[in-house]
C-alpha cells in the first residue's frame, strides 16, 4: 500500500511495546514495526497481562524488560481498548468507561515510571463534542459533551489528552494522542453482530454476490458521511508521530475525506462484482449525519497524511475477507 516513509534506523534501535498488538490496528502496527526491522516487539496477551489491573500492567513492563536488548530504549504504543458500537456502549456503559479509563491511566503512568522514551495512545473521533463543527479540529475537543450513548467511552478516551498534558508539564514525558477516524482494512472485525460500517458492508456484499441475492438492503438512506481511513495508513501515522514529534502531540489521524455511506456501498459493489439492486432501507437510522476530521494540524506535524485511496483500501479489504472468510468467528 502506501510507501513506508518511517525510518528503519530509528526502529532498529529500540524496543516497542504494543498493547492491543494482536488486534486490528495494533496488529498493523506490529506488522509495520517488523517490516522496519524493529528488533524487539512485545505484545501483551490478555490472559497473562490484564491491563485493567496494575498487576497485569507491571507484569507487562517486567516481561518486556526481560526481552529488551541490553541498553536499548523503548517506546509504548497503547492501542488496546474496549471498543464497540453504539449498541454495546449503551448496554455496557460502565464497562466501557472503567476499562478504558483504567487501562489508559495504568499503561501510560507505568510507561513513564519504567523509563519509556515516549508513548502513543489512540483516541477516537467520537470523543469530539456531539455538536462540534465538521471537519473536526483538535481545538474543539473540549468544547462540549460527546454523544450521550457512548459518553463513558468517549470521555475516558478524552482524558488521554489530560494525561498527556500533565505528564509533560511535570515529568517531561511525551504521550502522543491520535484521534482516529473510521479505520477499515484487512484484519478488521467482520463479526456480523459488531462489525463497523465498512467491514459490515464488505461482508454483506460479498455474501450477497456469492448467494446470487437479487438485492441488498443496507440500513439508512446512505446519505450519512464518514471519514474512512485505511488501517495501513493509521499504523504508519502512529509510528511517524513517535519518530517525528519531540513534544507531545494531539492530532487527528484520518483521511480527511468525507465519504457518504452510499459511495462506500457502491464502491464495494463494484469491487466485489455485485450487480444486484441496492435498496436503501430508510426505515433504519443513519446514525450521525456527517463526520470528518480536519487533517491540517496532523499534516504539518507529521509532514505526511493518510493517502491510500478508498478504492484501493477497499480492494485490499475485500481480498482479505475473501481469503479469511471461512475461518471460525474471530469474536472471543
Amino acid at each position: 500500500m502506501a510507501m513506508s516513509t518511517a525510518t528503519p534506523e530509528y526502529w532498529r534501535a529500540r524496543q516497542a511495546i504494543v498493547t492491543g498488538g494482536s488486534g486490528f490496528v495494533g496488529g498493523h502496527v506490529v506488522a509495520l514495526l517488523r517490516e522496519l526491522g524493529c528488533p524487539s516487539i512485545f505484545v501483551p496477551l490478555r490472559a497473562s497481562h490484564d491491563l485493567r489491573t496494575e498487576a497485569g500492567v507491571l507484569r507487562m513492563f517486567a516481561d518486556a524488560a526481560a526481552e529488551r536488548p541490553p541498553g536499548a530504549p523503548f517506546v509504548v504504543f497503547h492501542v488496546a481498548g474496549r471498543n464497540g458500537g453504539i449498541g454495546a456502549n449503551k448496554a455496557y456503559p460502565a464497562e466501557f468507561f472503567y476499562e478504558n479509563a483504567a487501562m489508559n491511566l495504568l499503561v501510560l503512568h507505568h510507561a513513564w515510571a519504567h523509563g519509556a522514551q515516549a508513548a502513543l495512545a489512540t483516541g477516537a473521533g467520537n470523543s469530539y463534542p456531539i455538536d462540534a463543527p465538521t471537519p473536526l479540529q483538535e481545538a474543539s475537543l473540549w468544547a462540549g459533551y460527546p454523544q450521550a450513548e457512548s459518553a463513558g467511552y468517549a470521555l475516558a478516551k478524552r482524558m488521554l489528552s489530560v494525561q498527556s498534558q500533565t505528564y509533560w508539564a511535570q515529568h517531561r514525558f511525551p504521550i502522543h494522542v491520535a484521534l482516529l477516524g473510521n479505520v477499515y482494512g484487512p484484519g478488521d472485525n467482520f463479526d456480523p453482530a459488531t462489525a463497523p460500517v465498512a467491514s459490515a458492508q464488505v461482508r454483506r456484499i460479498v455474501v450477497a454476490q456469492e448467494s446470487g441475492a437479487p438485492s441488498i438492503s443496507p440500513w439508512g438512506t446512505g446519505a450519512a458521511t464518514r471519514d474512512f481511513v485505511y488501517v495501513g495508513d493509521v499504523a504508519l501515522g502512529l509510528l511517524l508521530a513517535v519518530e517525528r514529534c519531540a513534544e507531545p502531540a494531539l492530532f487527528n489521524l484520518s483521511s480527511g475525506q468525507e465519504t457518504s455511506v452510499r459511495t462506500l456501498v457502491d464502491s464495494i459493489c463494484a469491487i466485489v462484482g455485485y450487480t444486484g439492486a441496492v435498496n436503501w432501507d430508510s426505515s433504519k437510522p443513519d446514525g450521525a449525519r456527517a463526520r470528518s476530521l480536519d487533517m491540517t494540524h496532523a499534516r504539518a506535524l507529521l509532514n505526511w497524511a493518510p493517502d491510500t485511496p478508498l478504492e484501493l483500501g477497499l480492494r485490499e479489504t475485500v481480498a482479505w475477507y475473501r481469503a479469511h472468510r471461512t475461518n471460525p468467528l474471530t469474536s472471543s
Partner: protein
Amino acid sequence: MSTSTHFWKDRRVLVTGGAGFIGSNLVARLLTEGVPYVRVADNLERGRREYLAESMRDPRVDFQQIDLRNRAAAIAACDGVDTVFHLASKVGGIGYYLQKPGEVFSDNTQIDHNMWAGAMTHKVPYYMYASSAHVYPIELQMAPDAPPIHEHQAYPANPELSYGWAKLIGEKLILYAVQQGCATRVAVPRLIGAFGPNQDLDLATGSAIPVFCRRAIEWPNGAPFSVMGTGKETRSFHYISDTLDALLRAVEKLQASPLVGPFNLGAEGRVTIEEIARNIIEISGKDIPISWDTSKPTAIWGQALDCSLAAKLLDGWRAKVMLREGLERSYRHIEQRLQTANGHVNRNA
C-alpha cells in the same frame, strides 16, 4: 422460559424460513432473548415481510431474500453465524402436498442438503433441523383414536406424504454425519400442530385453524364455512409460544450433547377437527353452519404423538397454553390482520 439466557446473548443466529409462521415468531423471540444478530433467510414464496415488520425495525435483524434451493446461496447464508434454525421448506396443506408430491420432495431434500453443506462448510456449532410428525408411517394414523406415536416408530418407514419422506431423508442426512463425529451439534424436533400468529390465511393452502378462523371472521360475507373431511379426524395442536420454548431449550441442551432428538414436539392431547371448528365458531359469537366436504377421502385419520421424550430431554417441558386460550389469541390476531391487510391476503375462496 429459556433456562440460560446468557447463552443467547452470545449467539449469531440464522433463521431459514424466517419470514414464515414459526420463523417470524422465532425471530421475535430471539430478539427478546438478547441475541445480538439474527439473519433471516427467506425466499418470500410463502413467508411475508409483514410477519417480520416489527422485528425488522430492530437493527439486530438482517433480512436476506435468498432461495435456498441454490446451493451457493445456502452455504453463504451460514457465513458468520454460530446457530442455525433451519425451518425453511416447501409447505402447505395436505391438498397441496398431494397435488405436488414431486416438487415438494425434490425442493425440500435439496434445501436440506444445501443447508447442511453450509453448516459443514462453516463448521456451525449449533444446528436445529425442524422435522415433522409427517415422518410417521400412515398405518399408525388410520383411526381417530390411534395410540400416540413414539419416536422409534418412524421405522419401518412409510410416510403418507412426500413431505414426510423428505423430512426423513433430512433427518438421516444429519444423523449419519453426527454419528461420524461432525463438528456441528444438532437438535431434531418433530413438530406437530403448532399454531398462532402469522399463519397462512389462504383458504386453499392454509392449515385448519387459521382457515377456520378466517371463515368465521368473514362469515356471512365470505365463503361458506366448509371443512374438508368428516370432522371426526383427530389432530394434536399446541400454541406457538410453547413451540419456541422447546426449540430454544433444545439448542441450549446442545452445549452438553452432540445430538438432542429426534423428539416429538407437540401437545399430548388430541381434538377432533369438529371440536376445533365448533370452538372457533363459539369464539366468533356467530351462528355458523358447517358444511362438511367429504368429496376427497381422508388421508390421515388420527395424528397424536407421545411427547414424554421432549419432557425428559428438555427439563420437563410440555405444551402449557390451553387450546381454547390459544385459539382465542389466534382468532383476535387474524381478525386484526384481515382488517389491516387488504391487499396482503388472497381474498379468493
